């Protein structure tokens, strides 16, 4: 048996940030040349940091990297590029106002005399590369006008144009539609057959199975398993990926669903400023004491739906009612006053103010009325006591109400956000990705809180990318695909595989306009 030469080798790599956070520790694994290797693990497991070190965006604080057998010390992406390493980042790194060709050749531009950019040569090169790799693009198109799937192709072309022998891809399918994913996988296989080495980050089991020749699992910054796909059956693979006992299932529901819906949405549609239809004809009911789950691949309208229901955007069509009163199209504060609470998708962006104290963060939805303020004056004493009570009651690990929010872990931050939103015992809670990127214990605590709120009679819309979470918590599940609801299921009547099919547009489509098809 011949051993393929190693394209990538990490030996005991450690990354500690100046603030003391340990992102990786003792990470060792290897990828053979021509192999597609999957790097899997939960959010925050340190996968992206590994990628950044391989691409010179971060420097390891200990250990060694080898590329094609040679030890390397990348100080700058330029070093990595010179060594034949290319990165397709998770957040696509393109310059929107430039054309596809300009983006692809950026950094390695064909020139004419006088430092001029040779646009014709650039376009020709891009066209040739696109043909070779099966990545169809228009070199003259402006990147800003392209859909995300095409932008990703541009990103891959960029890497290929620099002659990369090793491609790093960070969650490439997160933003893709199923046909786009299929095209991407075909391209990656083709590239690997042509001798290129591919390291891809994912957390989807089926993608690992479909694509990879080898897999390495990271958990909390360390390698917890590494294997060749040929040696694994599916059970072993999922055990490897989970790597530990599953968290205890959240408590089952205790209250029976009452027949009268509390929230009724009909015909919700949304058109953005560019005239693109982001949501169309979305309707659903949620009864008190019920959790309706919304499944979908990121970018299929979940964010828009959450914004419409929280007053952050005005629907272009349709409305939603709470106990018969229309609450869409009102301001966020008015929506909140009617009893609608919202956990936003990205807590650092629009769910919290990391530089302000825990206290100031908790006040955000309650500061404008008694008991926390009267006639425009905030009662700091009452607010403080309440904040301390929240910290204690939710088991938040924090020094006190004055600690900056940003100093907390993701789980503790998310607990405080949920606490803030449910403090006024809302009639309806819209929870977007409530446990994304938090540790297992915190996720389980958060799910228990959601279940408790449901048991108190609140209606809950749970938007989550975590199918296990949806299946465990929801009474019913609706699937969003390209801005429409394409399938509805009762809990227990569906499994992750079926949901996955519908999420990728491959399931049989819904007939007619049956909002109330499932009780």
């Amino acid at each position, binding site marked *: 048996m011949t051993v393929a030469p190693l394209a990538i080798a990490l030996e005991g790599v450690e990354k500690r940030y100046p603030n003391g956070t340990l992102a990786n520790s003792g990470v060792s694994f290897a990828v053979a040349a021509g192999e597609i290797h999957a790097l899997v693990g939960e959010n925050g497991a340190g996968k992206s940091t590994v990628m950044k070190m391989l691409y010179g965006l971060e420097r390891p604080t200990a250990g060694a990297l080898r590329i094609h057998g040679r030890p390397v010390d990348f100080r700058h992406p330029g070093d990595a590029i010179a060594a034949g390493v290319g990165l397709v980042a998770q957040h696509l790194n393109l310059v929107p106002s430039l054309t596809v060709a300009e983006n692809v050749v950026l950094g390695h531009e064909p020139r004419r005399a006088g430092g001029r950019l040779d646009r014709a040569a650039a376009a020709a090169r891009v066209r040739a590369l696109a043909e070779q790799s099966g990545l169809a693009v228009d070199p003259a198109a402006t990147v800003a006008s392209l859909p995300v799937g095409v932008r990703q192709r541009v990103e891959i072309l960029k890497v290929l144009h620099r002659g990369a022998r090793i491609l790093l891809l960070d969650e490439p399918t997160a933003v893709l539609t199923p046909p786009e994913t299929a095209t991407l996988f075909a391209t990656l296989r083709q590239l690997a057959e042509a001798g290129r080495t591919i390291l891809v980050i994912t957390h989807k089991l089926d993608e690992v199975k479909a694509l990879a020749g080898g897999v390495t699992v990271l958990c909390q910054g360390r390698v917890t398993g590494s294997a060749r796909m040929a040696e694994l059956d599916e059970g072993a693979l999922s055990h490897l990926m989970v790597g530990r006992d599953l968290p205890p299932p959240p408590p089952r529901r205790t209250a029976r669903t009452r027949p009268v819906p509390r929230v009724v949405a009909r015909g919700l549609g949304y058109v953005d400023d560019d005239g693109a239809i982001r949501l169309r004809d979305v309707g659903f009911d949620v009864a008190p004491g019920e959790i309706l789950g919304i499944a979908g691949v990121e970018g299929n309208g979940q964010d828009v739906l959450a914004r419409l229901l*929280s*007053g*952050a955007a005005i629907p272009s069509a349709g409305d939603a009612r709470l106990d018969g009163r229309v609450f869409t199209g009102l*301001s*966020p*504060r*008015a*929506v*909140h006053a009617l009893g609608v609470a*919202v956990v*936003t998708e990205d807590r650092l*962006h*629009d*769910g*919290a*103010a*990391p*530089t*302000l104290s825990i206290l*100031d963060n908790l*006040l*955000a*939805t309650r*500061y*404008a009325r008694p008991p926390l*303020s009267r006639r*425009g*004056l*905030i009662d*700091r004493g009452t607010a403080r006591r309440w904040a301390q009570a929240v910290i204690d009651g939710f088991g938040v690990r924090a020094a006190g109400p004055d600690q900056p929010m940003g100093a907390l872990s993701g789980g503790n931050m998310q607990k405080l956000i949920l606490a803030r939103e449910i403090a006024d015992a809302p009639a309806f809670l819209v929870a977007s990705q409530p446990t994304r990127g938090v540790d297992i214990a915190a996720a389980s605590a958060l799910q228990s809180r959601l279940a408790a709120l449901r048991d108190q009679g609140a209606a809950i819309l749970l938007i989550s990318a975590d199918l296990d979470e949806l299946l465990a918590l929801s009474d019913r599940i609706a699937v969003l695909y390209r801005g429409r609801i394409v399938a509805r299921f009762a809990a227990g009547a569906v499994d992750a595989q079926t949901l996955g099919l519908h999420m990728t547009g491959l399931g049989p489509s819904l007939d007619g306009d049956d909002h109330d098809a499932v009780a």
Partner: protein
Amino acid sequence: MTPSREGARIALAVGAALALGFAVMACVSDQPWAAFRALLTGPLPSIERAADGRVVVHRLVRFGAWLQDATTLTLVGLAIAIPFRARQFSLGADGQLFMGALAAAAISLGLGDTPTALPLAFLAAAAAGAGWGLVAGLLKTRFEANEIVTTLMLNVVAVQVYRLVVGRVLNDPSAGFITTPPLPEAATLAPLIARTTVTAMVLVAPAAVAAALFLLRRTTLGYEIDLAGANPWFAVRAGVPVARATALAFALGGAFAGLAGFHVSNALLKRLPVDLTPGIGLEGIVVALLARGRVGALPLAALGYAYLRVGAQAMERATDVPREVVLVIQALIILFVVSDRLAPLALGLARRASARIGGRAA
């Protein structure tokens, strides 16, 4: 960073700026030491025991000038610091001050020698400054117009409006230069200390700071301004009226700059010349910077900075060094204070140098 470390850092920056300023003075002056001494002791009154045993206080004028300058600087510092709480870079204190001064003078002249003239002039100045600030605020929140550009442009407009009104409407033809008539006595503030221009405004400045602190810390509007500055996206989602809070932050800052205008017109000059020099608004940036955006620290920063400015005037009168040297020192203070990586770099270099010296000695 902790306040004490921050304080040490600023002290270091000011010290370094003074040292470099001295180097510049040594280059352009024949008497650098005398000039430096005048700069650093200029604002202090000298107390002497005369031959007949009486205590005589000299140079009270400059001491008064110091307090009076600190008053103006505190108020324009507020005009910068409050919008900055909402993360807005307002450079509009100048225009707001001119509008405030103009409004105060116009009301004073219009009402004449009546008891209401003074309070109404005071309020008019605050309102005019606030209104001028609100324009920039609304341009930002309604039209996303870059506030640096709009406040600078509004400064130009305000100065021209001021010159137009002083030169053509409120002009006193009997004066030898273009100016308003002297303001009626009832509308002006009398000095608290004889032979100085120190008036009750010296107490208004700290009161204004206290009011601003109360507003920012204890009121819902203050909270809204802070939240809008810390994370506007979050604030919007939480239902906070971000646009209103941001616009009002400009207006609030403007009100204080307007009061600085009142200070200039009704306490200091008691009439408004057409060629009132713009630029004091930019000094507010230095003060806000020295206070590191902490509203409570503004009076201290203003006192420190006014001390330098008055010292520079004393130096100019006593020696061959023009007062513009203080501009150089001011610029260096700004640059050193704002350079976050400078202190660590300097300390690192010093450590390396001392290590090398130590190594050689060993």
